[in-house]
């Protein structure tokens, strides 16, 4: 056991830090702290420019294999995310392309697809969104009903997707669609790459409980994409879609935790400002939050270390459940620290303070990207080997 980064890795860290500082003290100085979950509506155009800046400097696709990527180790990816978060660099728009679609193409795509898609993603010029969930298939992805038919050399797509992050800003969408209507559930699905900027595609942002939007409904009404824009064979969509999720190796987790630490620091500052630490119960709840975050880091490091060489270990299946539950509780702590002032928002009509955003948006944390209930089902079945609840 040795929980130190190597000297080489520390040099890499210094390089990342220097680059971020130069940029975020320079042209992009107004972007620190903007964007991210619950705040995706902020500074869209400048953050798009930032994506291109990242791309030009070669920071996108760090973990992809060469030639499109730099083949960096998992720990270097971790370091990049840590420094990125520490610098309060803006929330990414490109992460779906970089961490989900990119690795999928790199592993399962055709040579043509690699040449076509990886370079623009790596340049920060092509934004992607993920078309999995549907109004009738939220937790139950195998219930997808969006249909795609091959006709005159192109797929024609009809259906509706929902909870699609950034759909209104994306150039492309990877869509799980039913291409063989005679097959049911997991069979008969395909994984299609569909351009968003065409007639036949409408993306409508969904306003959430914070009053802002980052998820969308996407309507495919005869949208088209070329026949070759499919990953894997027709009917292999489920397998490819699951592979996509597996490519998310969690390197960004430690960056996410630095964001959480920032929220916790803001709460501690509020405790001090209000002298709320006269109450030992508040002190202990803050301590619990701090302990919980430290445990989260230990858990992430252990799981990443085990997963460094291959599959993520089953031990890591609790990560989403853990952080979302912790974060929800953090939001509640923030409100309880503030007392009656917790109610007062930053400004009319519905401008929330950052702590209020944390509080409200964290209610979504336990729902999107696999609700807590689904997470527990997965743990029960995969980690504990319990029988399927029929």
């Amino acid at each position: 056991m040795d929980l130190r980064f190597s000297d080489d890795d520390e040099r890499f860290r210094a390089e990342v830090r220097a680059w971020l500082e130069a940029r975020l003290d320079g042209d992009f100085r107004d972007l620190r702290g903007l964007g991210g979950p619950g705040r995706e509506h902020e500074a869209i155009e400048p953050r798009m420019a930032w994506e291109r800046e990242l791309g030009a400097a070669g920071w996108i696709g760090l973990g992809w294999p060469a030639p499109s990527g730099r083949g960096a180790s998992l720990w270097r990816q971790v370091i990049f995310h840590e420094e990125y978060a520490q610098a309060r660099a803006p929330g990414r728009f490109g992460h779906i392309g970089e961490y989900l679609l990119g690795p999928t193409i790199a592993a399962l795509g055709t040579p043509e697809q690699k040449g076509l898609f990886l370079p623009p993603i790596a340049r920060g010029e092509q934004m992607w969104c993920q078309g999995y969930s549907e109004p009738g298939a939220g937790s139950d992805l195998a219930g997808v009903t969006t249909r795609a038919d091959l006709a005159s050399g192109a797929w024609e797509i009809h259906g509706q997707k929902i909870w699609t992050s950034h759909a209104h800003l994306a150039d492309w969408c990877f869509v799980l669609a039913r291409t063989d209507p005679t097959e049911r559930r997991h069979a008969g699905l395909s994984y299609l790459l569909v351009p968003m900027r065409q007639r036949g595609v409408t993306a409508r942002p969904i306003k959430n409980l914070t009053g802002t939007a980052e998820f969308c409904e996407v309507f495919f009404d005869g949208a088209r994409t070329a026949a070759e824009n499919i990953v894997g064979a027709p009917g292999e969509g489920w397998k490819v879609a699951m592979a996509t999720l597996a490519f998310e190796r969690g390197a960004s987790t430690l960056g996410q935790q630095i964001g959480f630490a920032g929220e916790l620091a803001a709460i501690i500052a509020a405790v001090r400002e209000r002298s709320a630490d006269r109450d030992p119960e508040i002190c202990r709840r803050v301590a619990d939050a701090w302990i919980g975050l430290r445990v989260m880091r230990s858990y992430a490091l252990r799981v990443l270390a085990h997963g460094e060489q291959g599959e993520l270990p089953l031990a890591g299946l609790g990560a989403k459940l853990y952080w979302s539950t912790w974060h929800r509780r953090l939001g509640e702590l923030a409100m309880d620290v503030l007392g009656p002032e917790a109610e007062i928002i930053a400004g009319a009509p519905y401008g929330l303070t950052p702590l209020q955003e944390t509080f409200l948006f964290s209610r979504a944390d336990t729902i999107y990207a696999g609700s807590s209930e689904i997470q527990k089902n997965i743990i029960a079945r995969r980690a504990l080997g319990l029988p399927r609840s029929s």
Partner: protein
Amino acid sequence: MRFAFSEEQEEIRRQVRRAIADGGGVLAARRAMLEDAATDLELWRRLTRDLGLAGLAIPEAHGGAGLGWVEIVAVIEELGASLACVPFLSSACLATAAILEAGTPAQHDALLPPMARGEATATLAWLEAGGDASPAAIETAARVAQGDHVILSGTKRHVVDGHTADLLLVTARTPDGAVALYAVPAAAAGVERRRLPTMDATRAQAEIVLSDVHVPASSRLGGGGWPPIGRALAKARIALAAEQVGGAQACLDLGVGYAKVREQFGRPIGSFQAIQHTLADMFVLVETARSSAYHAAWDGEHEPDLEITAAATAAYCAAAFYRCAADTIQVHGGIGFTWEHDAHLYFKRARAGRTLLGSMTDHRDTVARSLGLGPLGTQESR
């Protein structure tokens, strides 16, 4: 021993329910919350002019219905279920109780009739910057001026419906250090008020700045210091608890309704044990909270220890509503955290209720003190 509403009381409840339904239910609250007044004026008119509910707890001698907190609880439970944006809690419960508890008969006669008729509303302005609910935190000053006048100076915050109330009942500290309550017309010179925008948009709060506001010395309600104010807050806490029961029931109903129709994996999600057990827990919270609020409404008028009774039910019902509102979001999944769905409105109302009339911690400390446990500091009681 009878633990149930009378037929008359049930009839009042039905009338309220009908009035709310006619106005559009939660949709009316959604409309009202977007307006400056954050008040559903149409519903308030019906409740007051048509049904006379503003004076429910006001003695008949002062133009009210001469009923009591059992009726208040029946009414406000319905209002809570639909998030009604009306000043019932602030004016018909809190301010009414404050005037009844603190005022002299002459003051009752002067202040209550217009409220009973629904022509004027009132509210209690007691919290200040920092939101500390203890009377020791009151810094608004009442200075004696010549000509039998008093000059009030200070800033009140978190005043429920304070931006629309016609009459402000203001707590202030007199030169001898005692707490006094003054009836201040909102239109008095030197009163400035502004709505504080809130997370829970269905219930408005205001900041009220009093800059050398001159009021006659006779506008001091009675002479009793904090105890009558404490009793009025206790009664309002019982009303708020019942309102929260209504909200919690609505959340349970939303959750159960959705669980029966929403299908995933080829069956209603209400057939999954995880959903069933969440809803079952909500059911127990709703039924126990309801029992507690009803019991408190009766006890509050018939037993000693009003403030302990109120603190106990306030802490319990606030927690129950919050948990039900949070869990109904979870049961609904994605749709539950959208702006278009009502779940977040209940959730925000539930969150606000955790600190609206004292925090849940305050309430638990009150109970602990009554059990002889401490030192938790003692409430000032002069």
